[in-house]
């Protein structure tokens, strides 16, 4: 659905991204993996159209620029409106698209149900746990039924048990909805568990090193699969080699 052709991006003297090329297929679950400063968030913002590259290009298939609502974005923090209820937070993208609350209500309800927050419509962010806030944030990204879901270290601030539950739920959402996901993370375990394609990135300047295809069958049982441990080992070795180079 998207060809990224040798894009570069510079912020003053810092070269955040150099010569990054990547092809995104519809239905992919792709992880951008690397340490801080490797340009993974920069790349994600370029894909979202929140930032423009200094060089290179992003070519959408058939010249189809994504319309509003076709891309969902989930940040590291839940970034909810603290004064609005869970339902109103999820309603926001549809509201900005000019839909009335009544029109949007079934979609809002459906999105909250998909992330397991049935019955929490009226709750305010401050009444919810960190994991539940992140679920609201994911529901907000899903409510427009995006073709492409971009996630920037969404589970990094959560405790491990909550993180595992959310990872498993994200996988089943991905299978149910059939959307494409680009997931930024600095956790090798997270990338190995979630992604079909793991893109290894290195810092200073940020660049794509190479890519590893996951042999795992995606699902909660993958955590006990010896192939998962093997994949973690492989990614760890290759990441160490890329960083040393």
């Amino acid at each position, binding site marked *: 659905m998207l060809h990224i052709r040798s894009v570069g991006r510079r912020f003053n003297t810092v070269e955040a991204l150099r010569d990054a090329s990547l092809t995104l297929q519809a239905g992919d679950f792709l992880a951008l993996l690397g340490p801080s400063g490797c340009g993974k968030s920069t790349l994600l913002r370029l894909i979202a159209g*929140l930032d423009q590259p200094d060089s290179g290009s992003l070519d959408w298939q058939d010249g189809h620029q994504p319309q509003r609502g076709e891309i969902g*974005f989930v940040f590291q923090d839940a*970034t909810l*409106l603290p004064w609005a209820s869970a339902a109103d937070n999820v309603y926001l993208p549809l509201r*900005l698209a000019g839909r009335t609350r009544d029109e949007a209500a079934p979609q809002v309800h459906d999105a909250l149900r998909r992330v397991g927050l049935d019955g929490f419509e009226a709750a*305010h962010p*401050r*009444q919810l746990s960190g994991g539940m806030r992140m679920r609201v944030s994911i529901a907000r990204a899903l409510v427009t039924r995006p073709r492409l879901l971009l996630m920037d270290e969404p589970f990094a601030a959560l405790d491990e048990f909550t993180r595992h539950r959310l990872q498993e739920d994200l996988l089943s959402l991905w299978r149910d909805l059939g959307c494409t996901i680009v997931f930024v993370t600095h956790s090798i375990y997270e990338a190995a568990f979630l992604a079909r394609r793991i893109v290894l990135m290195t810092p200073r300047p940020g660049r794509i090193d190479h890519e590893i295809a996951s042999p795992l069958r995606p699902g909660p049982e993958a955590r006990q699969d010896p192939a998962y441990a093997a994949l973690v080992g492989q990614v760890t070795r290759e990441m160490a080699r890329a960083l040393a180079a």
Partner: protein
Amino acid sequence: MKFAPALFGIAALLAWEAVVRIAAVPEYLVPGPIAIVAAFLADPAGLLWSLGSTLLVTFAALLVAAVLGVALAVAIASSRLLAAAIQPWAIVLQVTPIVAIAPLVIVWVGDPFASLVVCATIVAFFPVFANTATGLASAPPELVDLFRLYGAGRFATLRLLRLPAAVPYFLTGLRISGGLALVGAVVAEFVAGSGGFGSGLAYRIMEAGYRLQVPRMFAALVLLSLAGIAINAGLSLLAEAVLRQRGGA
């Protein structure tokens, strides 16, 4: 703990009365609390009416300051050019002593009530303006990005993100401005009163001063400080109620 301020206040009043009586301090120098209360009770209607007049100026000025402050904060939040153009002048207004410009304002505006309100507004304007401007800029950059991602225009971002984010800041500014509006009203009354008109508490204080009715001066002062405390407490309660109501907590 809760009653500590009240107990301390009562103890201080008792000590004050005792010192004044034991040392036989004349009333025209320092009146005791009982003499002050007696002075108030001698003419409660006159003093309260003056208090009402001062409060009318205070609230009118607070209202104008709030409306102007929010409007200008929105203006500078939506345009860098306006921000660069307005901000230095807001600071000039803030640092100019009101006593120095009050006579000019009174000459220019003419109408006594309006000129008092203008003076008090000048004093009260800055906190509500500066706080609201800070609040409008306080929306997290990720949320601003999210609004951009969903194609929100400047107006939608202002209405659904920046203004709601500014509400707590605005309320803090309003509380500070409330106290300042009272100060501004009194200062302006002092200046205007010496010009021959005025009916507010400041005028009563001056009048009592000329007649050496020192207990009455004190009574007017006490009313002023009680009014200041009430304004502060009222605006605090308003802020708490608004934030609790929308915080869902």
